[in-house]
């Protein structure tokens, strides 16, 4: 097992990884920008190294400084968390060069799976259902027109190297097509540095359902069930739950099986997530995320496992500590991402947390790096806490979540707590009668 792990991240995920390390008896090294001197992850780690000024580009994304911090710290492994350098194959290679284990897939796998169009093509060939679309990215406008016609409108243009809704366009007819293609290319280039675009059939009313998997070095691949992340605002996940309330048992089993098969086809190792769209009848693979995700606690609480510890064990060369047959969902679990935002207009609301009461009691988990007096910085992501609850049924979990949202007091910054109270009491949420467009349509007036 590792002796010392450097966590190349900040905020709640850095705290989460430090907790897992402490429980495994592994020393921890935090890295931080000058903005984060007083942050919780710095306080909780055994050591801390300042890696740059507040701007993420000059600190948490600064390969040079993070690498030297790894060298200086004497750590034997690095946990990247999510975001920042977590999906950067160059960072994985640097870790390799430094003789330090990167906790995640190897550089080759990460790089290979970053090309979403290619991954789709490979899985398609192996009988994994994917959304109908182009084989790989489309280079010229003539082929685009041909491919779009063959798939049938509406279609979706997507950045092959992208994510988070950037470089994405819905096209409903051929006369919108070329303009949308050019705009998507520009946006993809600006956001991800590469402008490859591929085409997919646009599913009008999809549920977004993903499967958590974890694989060791011995060829064992298990799934830890699915998470339903349909509740999104402008392609950003807001609320996740498990099990998905819309899957029939037969479809659920087939989905799990498909995800494990896909992970095997792709030769994936460590924790990863396979994302699918579900149109009410069938599911279609869309992409694989080669890192731990924000919403991993949903699966942890539902199945009673510790994914971060398991990631660390698997990276240290151990076999998975559980078999598929031992994993059964024990509860219904819901997670809300609490952001420091104006709940009406969703502007970030940085500031200092003056009053704080964090909900507790039975079946409640809160992952946060925020304490009374913490500064919420404008430099980083506005998510300040993940509130996760379990219940014996979805309805019990929903009521517990409402109870917790009522209890939650965060003074000094505006948060999305009131917004979640509204969502959780809508008839659509209660009856599972919504798709990924629900929030945008209902609360933002967007088609």
């Amino acid at each position: 097992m590792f002796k010392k792990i450097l966590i190349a991240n900040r905020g709640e995920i850095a705290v989460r990884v430090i907790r897992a390390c402490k429980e495994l008896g592994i020393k921890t090294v935090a890295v931080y920008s000058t903005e984060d001197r007083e942050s919780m992850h710095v306080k909780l780690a055994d050591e801390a190294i300042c890696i740059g000024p507040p701007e993420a580009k000059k600190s948490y994304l600064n390969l040079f400084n993070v690498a030297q911090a790894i060298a200086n710290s004497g750590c034997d492994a690095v946990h990247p968390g999510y975001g920042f350098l977590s999906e950067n194959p160059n960072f994985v290679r640097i870790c390799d060069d430094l003789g330090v284990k990167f906790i995640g897939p190897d550089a080759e796998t990460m790089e290979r799976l970053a090309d979403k169009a290619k991954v789709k093509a490979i899985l398609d060939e192996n009988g994994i259902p994917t959304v109908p679309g182009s084989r790989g990215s489309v280079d010229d406008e003539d082929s685009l027109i041909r491919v779009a016609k063959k798939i049938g409108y509406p279609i979706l243009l997507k950045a092959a190297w992208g994510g988070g809704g950037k470089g994405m366009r819905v096209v409903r007819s051929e006369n919108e097509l070329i303009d949308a293609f050019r705009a998507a290319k520009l946006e993809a280039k600006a956001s991800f540095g590469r402008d490859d675009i591929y085409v997919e059939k646009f599913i009008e009313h999809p549920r977004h359902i993903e499967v958590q998997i974890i694989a060791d070095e011995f060829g064992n691949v298990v799934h830890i069930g699915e998470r339903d992340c349909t509740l999104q605002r402008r392609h950003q996940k807001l609320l996740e739950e498990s099990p998905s309330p819309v899957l029939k048992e037969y479809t659920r089993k087939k989905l799990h099986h498909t995800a494990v098969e896909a992970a095997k086809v792709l030769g994936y190792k460590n924790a990863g997530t396979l994302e699918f769209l579900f149109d009410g009848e069938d599911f279609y693979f869309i992409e694989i995320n080669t890192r731990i995700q924000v919403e991993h606690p949903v699966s942890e609480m539902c199945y009673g496992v510790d994914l971060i510890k398991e990631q660390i064990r698997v990276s240290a060369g151990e076999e998975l500590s559980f078999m598929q047959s031992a994993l059964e969902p024990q509860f219904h679990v819901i997670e809300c991402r609490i952001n420091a935002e104006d709940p009406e207009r969703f502007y970030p609301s940085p500031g200092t947390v003056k009053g704080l009461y964090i909900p507790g009691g039975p079946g409640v988990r809160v992952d946060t790096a925020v304490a009374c007096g913490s500064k919420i910085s404008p430099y980083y992501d506005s998510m300040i806490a993940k509130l996760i609850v379990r219940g014996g049924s979805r309805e019990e979990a929903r009521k517990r979540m409402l109870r917790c949202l009522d209890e939650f007091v965060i003074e000094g910054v505006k948060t999305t707590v009131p917004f979640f109270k509204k969502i959780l009491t809508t008839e659509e949420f209660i009856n599972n009668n919504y798709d990924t467009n629900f929030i945008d349509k209902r609360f933002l007036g967007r088609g």
Partner: protein
Amino acid sequence: MDLKSLKDLMRFVEKSQFVEFEYKDDEMHIVLKKKEAFVADSIVTQAPQPVVLEANVPQQQVKETKEEEKKEEKVEEGLVEIRSPMVATFYRAPSPTSPPYVEVGDEVKKGDVLCILEAMKIMNELEAEFPCRIEKILVENGQKVEYDQPLFLVKRLD
């Protein structure tokens, strides 16, 4: 009121214990405040001399330094810290057998090399951004340093 009277008044107020004086004519509005009137609001702003506490270091560092940090530091007047612009290993000399670039008491010109910062096997020479005298070397030869860590305490000579 003529200038002489105004000067006179100013001298008078200067010598007095009042820390605030306000006067309006026609309507006759006077406000007089002693320093005690400001206790509680402003302990910090009442410091007798604003000491320059910021480190003056290469690159864009000064503007990154935060208010909170300034308070923590106790740097003498006129002295500034030169801080590390990167995570690195600190070397005082270009090789183990060479003499150190600088010693305490040395006066250096702008552009003189102060030390080597080794990061990812690259030797970075840290140069003085202004003429100064080395008052204290704050880290050991071969020591690992983090971003923003004070390396030298110097007296500016410009």
